[in-house]
C-alpha cells in the first residue's frame, strides 16, 4: 500500500500514542480515529499486531557463522565423505568441532573402522602434529584408544593433517553411559578404575593427558550390550572404557561441545573449569602426573555426584581461578548417600590443592579404589597418610624433577603436549623438539590467548577498581598495604594467563603501575610501604619491556617503560637494593635519552628523562660514589631549563624545579664545596613547594572537588613537610642559623594552619587528608616554640597541634599508633640537636609514649 507523506506522519503519531496503551484504552483511541482515517488506523493496527507477534530476526544480534564456508564452499561440513585419505575411506562424520572434524572411516588393510581426526591446517606446524602422533602411537593399553597412524595430505583447500584412532562404536561419555544404564556407585567406580589404569600406563610412557574430562572418557554402547548378553562375566567389562584424545583435544576442538554454553566467553570458561590449582597458578613447571590425578578426581567427583566439586557458575575469570585454588571441594559422601566416607576420602585425596598431598600416581588412585571395592581400609583414610606421602614424595623429588612439562606458560592448560621422562639422549632430543614445537603452538593458540587476554584485561581493571576502593576505605597503613598486596597477587595470577598479545600486556602493565602507585609512592615512603609497589613495578616493567620490544617505534610504549623503570628505581632505593636500583636507573635514563633525541621529542619525553635522572641519582643517596647523584641532578637541572623554554606546562616545570633544587641542596651539602651547605637550594625548593601546595589546595577548592585533586594536595602537603621542609631545617641547623630556621619553621606551620583551616571549613575535605603530615608538624612546632619569645604565638601554635592530636584520638577511624610511631621517629631524628620543647616533652610523657 502506498501512503502519502501525511499518512505516514499520522501512522507514526498514532502508533506512538497507541503503543503504551493497553486493552480498552487502546481500542478507544483507535476507534476514535477510525471514522476519519480508516486506512491509517488499519495500518497502525497491523503494526501493533506485528509488534506483539513475537521474536524475530531483529531481536537477536546477527551471527556471522558460515562466512567461512562462503570463502571455501568446497569445505562444507561433511564434505570429505566418500574421499580416501591416507588409505582410509571416509564413511560418515562423527563430530565437527571448530578446528577439526572427526569422521568414521574404513581402513582397507587391515580391515577395520577407525575414527579419523582431520585438522585443516592453516599454517600450523605439521611437525608438531607428527611428534605427538608418534608419542601417542607408543601407547598400548586396553583402555587407551589406539592411534593407528597419522599423516598429512595436500588437498585443494590446503594441507590436511589426519590421525587415525581406534573407533568406539556408539560412544558415550563415561557420565552419560553411567546415567543411561543407571549404574550404581560400585559399577561407576569399577568403570572409573579403568581410566586410572589407562592414565597410569600413559604416564609411564611419559605422556600426560592434561585435558581429562568426561568427554574424553568414552564407553561403547554396543560393547556394553554385548557384555550383558554374554552374562555378567567380569572379563567382558574390562574392555569397555577408553581414554581418548591424549594431547589432542584442545587442538581439534578448543571448545567442548558438551558444555552446552552459549557464548564464546562461556565456552572458554567452561574449558577452564577442569583446570587444576597448579594450572591456575600459571606455573607450567609444576605440571606433572599429579595434575592428571587431580583431573581424574574431578571426573570421579562428577561421575559420583553429577557435579563438579566447586560452585563455578557465573564466576568471573579471576573468581574461577581463585575458587579452584582455594575453595575446599565438596565431599561426595555429603552429597550422595550411597557414597560412603571412604570413597569420599579417596576423591578428596585426589583433589588436594597441593600436588604433594595427592596420590603420587594414577596407579595409586586405582589401587585405593580397588581396595574400596574389596571393602578394605583405604589409604586415603589412614592416619598420618598425608605426612607419609609428603616424605615419600620428597624421596622421589629427583624423579619429579626429571619431568619436563612441555606446556606453555602463556596459555595455561590450553595447550597440550607430550611430556616425557628423561633417561637417554634420544629422549632428550625429543624433549628439545617438543619444547620448540610448544613455542610454535603458542602462535597457533593465539586465538584462544586473545580471548583470554580480553578477559584478563577486564579482570585487571576490576582488580584495580577494587584495590582503589579497599585502599581508600582502609584506615591504617597496614590495611592499605594489604589491599595493594592483594591486588598485586591477583594481577600476577592474571599475568600467568596472558599470551603474547601486546594490547593485553599494555592493559595489565598499566594496572600494575596504577596498583603500585596506590601506595608508597611518596618520595620518603618507607621500605614496608614500598615492597608491594616494588613488586607491581617489576611486573609492569617486564610487561612494558615486552610491549616495547614488540613495537620498538612506539613512543608511548617507550615512555611507559621509562616511567615504570623510574618507579622501580625509586622503590629499589627505598628497599635498599642499590645495585638493582642503579641498573634500572641506567636503563631508564638511556631509554629516556632515546626519547629526547628522537626528532619528534615532546615535553613528556623531557619530563621522563628528568624523572629518570632523579631516580637514578637518588640511588646514590645511600650509595657510593655520592657524586654521581650530583651529576645526575645537574643534568636534570639543564633539562628542566630546556623544558621551561620548550613549552612545558608551568606547573610541571615548577614541580620539577622544586625537586631539582631539593636534590642539588642535598648533594651540595654532602659533596660540593658550597659554603652554604646547600641551604639556599633547600630554601628555594621549600618556597617553590609551598607555593605548589597552596596552589593544589586552591585547585581543590575551586571547581569540582575530585579524589585525584584531593590526593594531589595531600601528597604535596606531606612532601612539603617530609622532604622539603625537613631538608631545609637540617641545613639551617647545620649552619647554626637560627633566624633562617625560625623563618622556615614558621612558614611550614603557617601552611599547616592553612590546610587545617581548609579541612575544618570544607565538608568534602576529610580530616584524614592532613593527618599523615601531623607528626612532622608536631616536631616542627616543638622545635619552633623553643626559639621564639612570644608566649602568645607559642601557645597558639602548640595548642593547634595538641588539639589536632586530640581530634585524631577521638576519631575511632584513625590509627593513633601509626601517627605516634611516625612522630616519635621524626622526633628522635631531630633530637640530637637538643631541640625538645619542655612542654612537648611533658605532653608526650603524659601519654606514656616512649621515645
Amino acid at each position: 500500500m502506498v501512503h502519502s507523506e501525511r499518512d505516514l506522519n499520522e501512522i507514526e503519531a498514532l502508533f506512538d500514542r497507541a503503543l503504551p496503551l493497553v486493552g480498552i484504552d487502546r481500542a478507544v483511541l483507535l476507534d476514535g480515529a477510525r471514522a476519519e482515517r480508516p486506512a491509517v488506523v488499519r495500518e497502525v493496527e497491523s503494526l501493533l499486531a506485528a509488534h506483539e507477534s513475537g521474536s524475530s530476526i531483529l531481536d537477536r544480534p546477527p551471527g556471522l557463522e558460515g562466512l567461512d564456508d562462503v570463502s571455501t564452499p568446497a569445505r562444507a561440513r561433511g564434505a570429505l565423505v566418500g574421499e580416501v585419505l591416507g588409505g582410509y575411506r571416509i564413511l560418515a562424520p562423527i563430530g565437527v568441532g571448530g578446528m577439526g572434524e572427526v569422521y568414521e572411516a574404513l581402513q582397507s588393510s587391515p580391515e577395520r573402522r577407525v575414527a579419523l581426526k582431520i585438522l585443516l591446517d592453516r599454517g600450523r606446524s605439521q611437525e608438531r602434529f607428527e611428534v605427538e602422533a608418534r608419542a601417542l602411537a607408543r601407547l598400548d593399553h586396553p583402555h587407551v584408544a589406539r592411534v593407528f597412524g597419522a599423516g598429512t595430505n595436500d588437498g585443494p583447500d590446503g594441507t590436511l593433517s589426519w590421525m587415525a584412532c581406534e573407533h568406539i562404536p556408539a560412544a558415550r561419555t563415561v557420565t552419560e553411559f553411567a546415567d543411561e544404564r543407571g549404574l550404581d556407585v560400585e559399577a561407576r567406580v569399577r568403570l572409573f578404575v579403568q581410566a586410572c589404569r589407562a592414565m597410569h600406563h600413559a604416564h609411564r610412557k611419559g605422556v600426560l593427558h592434561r585435558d581429562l574430562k568426561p568427554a574424553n572418557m568414552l564407553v561403547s554402547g554396543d560393547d556394553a550390550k554385548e557384555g550383558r548378553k554374554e552374562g555378567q562375566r567380569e572379563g567382558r567389562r574390562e574392555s569397555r572404557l577408553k581414554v581418548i584424545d591424549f594431547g589432542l583435544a584442545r587442538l581439534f576442538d578448543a571448545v567442548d561441545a558438551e558444555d552446552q554454553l552459549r557464548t564464546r566467553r562461556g565456552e572458554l570458561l567452561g574449558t577452564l573449569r577442569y583446570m587444576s590449582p597448579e594450572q591456575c597458578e600459571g606455573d607450567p613447571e609444576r605440571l606433572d602426573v599429579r595434575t592428571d590425578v587431580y583431573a581424574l578426581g574431578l571426573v570421579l567427583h562428577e561421575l559420583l555426584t553429577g557435579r563438579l566439586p566447586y560452585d563455578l557458575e557465573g564466576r568471573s575469570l579471576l573468581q574461577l581461578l581463585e575458587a579452584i585454588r582455594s575453595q575446599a571441594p565438596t565431599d561426595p559422601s555429603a552429597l550422595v548417600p550411597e557414597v560412603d566416607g571412604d570413597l569420599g576420602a579417596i576423591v578428596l585425596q585426589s583433589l588436594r590443592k597441593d600436588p604433594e598431598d595427592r596420590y603420587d600416581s594414577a596407579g595409586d588412585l586405582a589401587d585405593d579404589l580397588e581396595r574400596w571395592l574389596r571393602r578394605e581400609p583405604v589409604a586415603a583414610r589412614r592416619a598420618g597418610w598425608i605426612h607419609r606421602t609428603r616424605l615419600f614424595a620428597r624421596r622421589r623429588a629427583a624423579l619429579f624433577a626429571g619431568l619436563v612439562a612441555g606446556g606453555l606458560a602463556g596459555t595455561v592448560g590450553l595447550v597440550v603436549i607430550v611430556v616425557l621422562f628423561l633417561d637417554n639422549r634420544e629422549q632428550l632430543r625429543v624433549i628439545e623438539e617438543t619444547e620448540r614445537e610448544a613455542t610454535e603452538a603458542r602462535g597457533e593458540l593465539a586465538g584462544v590467548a586473545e580471548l583470554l587476554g580480553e578477559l584478563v584485561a577486564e579482570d585487571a581493571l576490576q582488580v584495580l577498581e577494587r584495590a582503589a576502593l579497599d585502599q581508600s576505605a582502609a584506615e591504617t597503613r597496614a590495611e592499605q598495604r594489604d589491599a595493594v598486596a592483594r591486588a598485586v597477587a591477583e594481577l600476577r595470577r592474571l599475568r600467568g594467563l596472558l599470551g603474547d598479545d601486546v594490547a593485553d600486556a599494555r592493559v595489565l602493565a598499566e594496572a600494575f603501575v596504577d596498583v603500585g602507585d596506590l601506595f608508597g609512592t611518596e618520595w620518603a615512603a618507607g621500605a614496608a610501604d614500598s615492597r608491594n609497589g616494588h613488586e607491581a613495578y617489576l611486573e609492569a616493567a617486564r610487561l612494558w619491556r615486552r610491549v616495547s620490544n614488540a613495537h620498538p617505534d612506539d613512543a608511548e610504549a617507550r615512555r611507559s617503560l621509562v616511567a615504570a623503570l623510574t618507579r622501580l628505581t625509586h622503590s629499589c632505593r627505598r628497599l635498599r637494593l642499590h645495585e638493582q636500583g642503579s641498573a634500572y636507573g641506567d636503563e631508564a635514563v638511556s631509554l629516556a635519552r632515546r626519547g629526547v633525541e628522537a626528532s619528534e621529542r615532546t615535553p613528556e619525553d623531557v619530563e621522563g628523562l628528568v624523572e629518570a635522572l632523579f631516580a637514578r641519582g637518588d640511588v646514590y643517596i645511600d650509595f657510593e660514589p655520592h657524586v654521581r647523584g650530583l651529576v645526575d641532578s645537574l643534568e636534570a637541572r639543564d633539562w628542566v631549563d630546556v623544558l621551561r623554554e620548550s613549552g612545558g606546562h608551568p606547573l610541571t616545570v615548577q614541580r620539577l624545579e622544586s625537586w631539582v633544587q631539593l636534590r642539588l641542596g642535598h648533594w651540595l651539602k654532602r659533596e660540593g664545596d658550597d659554603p652554604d651547605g646547600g641551604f639556599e637550594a633547600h630554601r628555594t625548593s621549600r618556597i617553590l613547594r609551598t607555593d605548589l601546595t597552596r596552589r593544589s589546595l586552591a585547585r581543590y577548592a575551586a571547581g569540582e572537588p575530585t579524589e585525584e585533586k584531593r590526593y594531589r594536595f595531600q601528597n604535596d602537603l606531606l612532601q612539603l613537610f617530609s622532604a622539603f621542609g625537613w631538608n631545609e631545617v637540617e641545613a639551617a641547623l647545620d649552619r647554626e642559623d637560627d633566624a633562617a630556621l625560625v623563618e622556615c619553621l614558621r612558614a611550614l606551620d603557617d601552611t599547616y594552619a592553612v590546610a587545617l583551616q581548609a579541612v575544618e571549613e570544607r565538608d568534602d575535605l576529610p580530616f584524614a587528608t592532613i593527618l599523615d603530615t601531623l607528626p612532622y608538624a608536631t616536631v616542627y612546632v616543638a622545635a619552633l616554640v623553643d626559639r621564639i619569645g612570644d608566649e602568645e604565638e607559642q601557645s597558639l601554635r602548640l595548642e593547634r597541634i595538641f588539639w589536632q592530636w586530640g581530634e585524631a584520638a577521638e576519631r575511632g577511624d584513625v590509627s593513633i599508633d601509626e601517627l605516634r610511631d611516625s612522630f616519635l621517629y621524626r622526633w628522635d631524628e631531630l633530637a640530637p640537636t637538643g631541640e625538645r620543647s619542655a612542654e612537648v616533652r611533658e605532653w608526650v610523657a603524659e601519654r606514656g609514649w616512649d621515645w
Partner: protein
Amino acid sequence: MGEFPEEPAAGDRPPLFERVYGELRRLAQRRLEEGLGGTSLQATAVVHEVWLKLAEAPELEGKDSSHYYATAAQAMRWILVDRARRRRSTALASGVEDGLAAADASGDAEEVLALDAALARLETAFPRKAAVVSHRYFAGLSVEATAEALGISTATVKREWAFARAWLLRELGGTLPAPPEGDAPESGDS
C-alpha cells in the same frame, strides 16, 4: 518480492567504507577460523572490535565514532547480505545431500535477504527509522549510543525502534517461521 540494493562497485565506494568493510570481513573470517565460537559469532562484537582497531586510522581522522558506526553498519549489512546470497545458492546446489544443514542455512539466508529488502523499503518511507535499525541491529549500538550517533534523544530512539521493528516484522510476516513457544516478545520500549 523486493530487490536488494546493489553493492556499489569497489571504485565508487569511499575509502572509509572500503577499509571498514575489509577489516570487518577479515576479522570475522579470522574469528571463525579460530573456531572458538562453534556456536555463535556475533556480528556486533566484530564491529566493536574493529572500531578499537580503526579508531586511529587515517581515514577516520577528525571523525568520531558515530561516523565509523554508520559506515560499519552499512558494511556489515553488505557482508551479511552477501553471505546470505551465497548461502542460498550453495544450499540450492548441494540440495538433498546434506538435508538438514542445507535447509537451515537457506532458511537463515532467506531471513536476512528478506530483512534487507524490507529495510530498503523502510528507508524510503522512514529514513531515520531505518537508520536506527541499521545502527542498532547491524552495528550493535545500544539505545544510548544510537541516540548519540544520530543526534536524537534516547526516547526518540526507543520510539523509532519500536515502530520500525513492528513495521519490519509485519513486512517479514509472510516469510518467517512461527515464533518459538515461550519466547516472550520484546516490549520494544524497555
